[in-house]
């Protein structure tokens, strides 16, 4: 197990686990909650088939402490640069070509929610609570939370969530497509881990990477471009599989 800035990393079987490890609320120290270089190193093991992000103890994360951010501004730190670094970390997570699941229990606020939204699948406990409380201190989510919540929930519901700063429960979060699955509160970790294993255990990494790439294209390319890429990806897998079958046929 490795730890940096109260974020831990371990690998169990072929699943990497990132734990926001600053209990009880697992507050994040800075926008790039884990340095990009460290994250890249962690996620570069070529046998990894999936990643789970969770919080230590009862909560996922209360997000960043805004007082820290305001202090950085007072100390004339380049806050925009910091935020760009944070966004790069979340983009790295979102663009990984293995599935990333956020396993959420307790509070999932602000930057914590932004981390969850950058993951591919969100599984939460029935007692989970979600909010973008930034507005209460005169700011807005700044790590892509406005964009990603809008993409998931549509304009009216994203606007209500961000502008009100109000908390919503697991049921409402699922109703507005902010989370994908709601499970028993004692089972979030196990359920998410098992889910990820079942998703990937029978699949070679080439297939997992191909599917993740195609689904990334579905979000970022036009339909024509995404379809062309999908057919190209399919062809590459088909050639490999045809040769594999021919190979084994000759033996």
């Amino acid at each position, binding site marked *: 197990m490795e730890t940096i800035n109260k974020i831990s990393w371990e690998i169990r079987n072929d699943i990497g686990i990132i734990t926001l490890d600053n209990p009880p609320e697992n507050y994040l120290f800075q926008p790039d909650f884990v340095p990009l270089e460290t994250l890249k190193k962690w996620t570069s093991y070529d046998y990894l088939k999936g990643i789970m992000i969770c919080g230590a103890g009862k909560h996922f994360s209360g997000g960043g402490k805004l007082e820290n951010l305001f202090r950085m501004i007072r100390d004339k730190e380049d806050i925009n640069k910091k935020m760009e670094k944070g966004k790069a970390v979340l983009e790295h997570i979102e663009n990984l070509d293995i*599935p990333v699941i956020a396993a959420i229990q307790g509070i999932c606020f602000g930057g914590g929610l932004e981390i969850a939204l950058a993951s*591919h*699948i*969100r599984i939460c406990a029935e007692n989970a609570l979600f909010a973008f409380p930034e507005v209460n201190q005169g700011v807005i989510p700044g790590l892509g939370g406005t964009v990603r919540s809008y993409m*998931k929930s549509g304009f009216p519901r994203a606007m209500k969530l961000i502008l009100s700063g109000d908390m919503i429960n697991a049921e409402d979060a699922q109703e507005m*497509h902010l989370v*994908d*699955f709601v499970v028993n509160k004692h089972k979030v970790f196990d359920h998410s881990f098992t889910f990820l294993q*079942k*998703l*990937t255990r*029978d*699949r*070679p990494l*080439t*297939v*997992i990477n*191909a*599917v*993740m790439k*195609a*689904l990334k*294209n*579905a*979000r970022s390319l036009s*339909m*024509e471009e*995404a*379809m*062309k890429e*999908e*057919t*190209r*990806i*399919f*062809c*590459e*897998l*088909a*050639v*490999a*599989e*045809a*040769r*594999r*079958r*021919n190979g084994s046929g000759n033996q």
Partner: protein
Amino acid sequence: MEFFREFGEALYFISLCGEFHALIISGHGRHYSSGADVPVLLKEINENVVTDERGKLQHIPEFLSKNYESFLLLESLSIPVISAIRGVCLGSALELALFSHFRLCGEEAVFGLPEASFNLAPGLGGMYKLCSMAGLAFALERVLKGSTFSAEDALKHGIVDKVVPKKVLIPAAFDFARQVMQDFRVEKRGLYIKKYLS
């Protein structure tokens, strides 16, 4: 392979001739279709691709790019295209259905993109469509597992527009076609579903 060639030609004819008011796609007999014959498809691709020494593809074989072009043509038709789905609807058959403007299905219909279980992935826009209709988590789970899902699940995730008893599926598709062809415009898809299918 033969299917796609004939399908492409028929579609081209329909798009030019202007005498049809709606198109219903259904399967003969109990099922819609279980998609392509994988061994045949693999053989065809392996014989038609050009790869470099690292196994990287030089270009997509023409017969495959024609397939997805015909799906794009299907979607761009100015008449309503309705898939009426009974029984199994798997792989490229589901992709075909996803490029129709509307999908009606029988209660017992079964859907899936099982390609990953053959070490492949859907290749005709199935991942694109599933992701944009049902969201990343649903698409990721179904495609990676290759597992099937029910009519009820498909309806819940916006993949089909209406589920009916299978005995009345074809008449229901015809009724709907007659209603929607009066003033069909693809942008009004949601409106037609609300008006005629809910």
